[in-house]
């Protein structure tokens, strides 16, 4: 039951095995509770409760709680023994895994600054007012980095593409690539489309509505170079990160959704629905080919699948600024869509 290898790689196991392990550990730990509240279990059930005092001692018990508590030493010692053995086993497993993680890094020379090119994919729809600002900020914060900006526009009627053409005249057509599509076809396909034209070995995805500030990009890049991670996510739920412009209900809903996803999926990251991420290009291709959902469940599915496949994921705290113009409402149907996506992920990953 306590194979150390299983505990170390528990994050990468499919959900059914994780639940199995959890159930077996919980069963051992719950024995004292069962002892206290079920003073005389039916005789057919006794073989399944190895730590019950009725199994350990040979004489019969009376039913009062007092007599059972008369041997608190037995139940407490059983509890402590089982709990501490599991604690020690898990601690040993984690110590071994941390020690062994140094062997996991591949010694490739991929992390000198001059050899990395970053393709920033920005899917846009009606972002005529924001796209110039985003491009200016990216160029301002990434001065010594080799990068390109790929604008994937879904046929915006407000003239976003004309703005991008003018920006291309200013910054050069090799730094800003405009790859439009005829109509709104979805976020996942926008990423695939952008990746086809990406020439860098790292891909950054971000929103064009100024909720993701480009000033965090240097931090993403340096974090990736320090830790040689495959994926770097921006997280709002770590110290130093946060949201701005949300009322209390929205914040509570977002936190509650995250807690729910953490309980059911064990993803290994603290923010599942954030979409400000840096991927190694090969990793992104691998993950996108195995994802099938749409909307923000797509973001969740990507990071959960990456976690199950064992990729190295790091986090950077970011501040998410809610869009100033036009509020995105969170109605009942979004909540139900989220729950359906969560159930799908629980069963299939």
């Amino acid at each position: 039951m306590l194979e150390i290898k299983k505990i170390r790689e528990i994050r990468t196991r499919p959900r059914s095995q994780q639940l199995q392990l959890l159930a077996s550990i919980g069963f051992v730990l719950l024995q004292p509770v069962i002892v206290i509240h079920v003073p005389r279990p039916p005789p057919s059930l006794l073989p399944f409760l190895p730590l019950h005092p009725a199994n350990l001692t040979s004489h019969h018990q009376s039913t009062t709680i007092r007599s059972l508590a008369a041997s608190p030493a037995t139940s407490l010692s059983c509890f402590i023994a089982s709990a501490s053995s599991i604690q020690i086993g898990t601690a040993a497993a984690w110590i071994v895994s941390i020690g062994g993680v140094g062997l996991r890094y591949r010694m490739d020379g991929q992390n000198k600054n001059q050899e990395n090119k970053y393709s920033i994919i920005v899917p846009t729809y009606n972002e005529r007012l924001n796209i110039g600002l985003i491009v200016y900020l990216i160029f301002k914060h990434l001065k010594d980095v080799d990068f390109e900006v790929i604008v994937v526009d879904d046929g915006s009627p407000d003239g976003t593409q004309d703005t991008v053409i003018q920006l291309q005249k200013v910054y050069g057509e090799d730094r800003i690539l405009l790859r439009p599509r005829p109509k709104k076809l979805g976020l996942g396909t926008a990423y695939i489309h952008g990746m086809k034209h990406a020439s860098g070995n790292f891909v950054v995805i971000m929103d064009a509505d100024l909720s993701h500030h480009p000033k965090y990009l240097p931090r993403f890049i340096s974090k990736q170079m320090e830790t040689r991670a495959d994926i770097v996510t921006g997280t709002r739920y770590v110290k130093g990160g946060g949201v701005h412009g949300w009322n209390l209900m929205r914040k509570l809903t977002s936190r509650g959704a995250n807690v729910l996803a953490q309980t059911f999926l064990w993803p290994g990251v603290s923010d599942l629905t954030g979409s400000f991420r840096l991927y190694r290009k090969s990793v992104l291709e691998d993950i996108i080919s195995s994802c099938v959902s749409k909307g923000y469940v797509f973001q969740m599915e990507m990071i959960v699948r990456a976690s199950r496949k064992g990729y190295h994921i790091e986090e950077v705290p970011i501040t998410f600024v809610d869009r100033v113009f036009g509020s995105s409402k969170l109605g009942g149907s979004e909540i139900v869509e989220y729950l359906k996506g969560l159930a799908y992920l629980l069963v299939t990953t």
Partner: protein
Amino acid sequence: MELADRAVGFLLTFLSLSIFTYYTFWVIILPFVDGDHFVHKYFLPQEYAILIPVSAGVAILCFLCIFIGLVMLKSKKKRA
């Protein structure tokens, strides 16, 4: 504005911590205490330690199912 949010946060944390300690005391420590100790006055009879969480869980599940059902009905009506 932000201060009000933090206040609500602290209130929630405090509430959940107090419920947790009360419940832990009730379930784990009280059975080992003699039946005529005065502390038993402050706690409900033992059955409620199981009844209350189970009924709360059932109520939450019912509410969840009704909510999901209503939303799905509404969306189907809107589409039709």
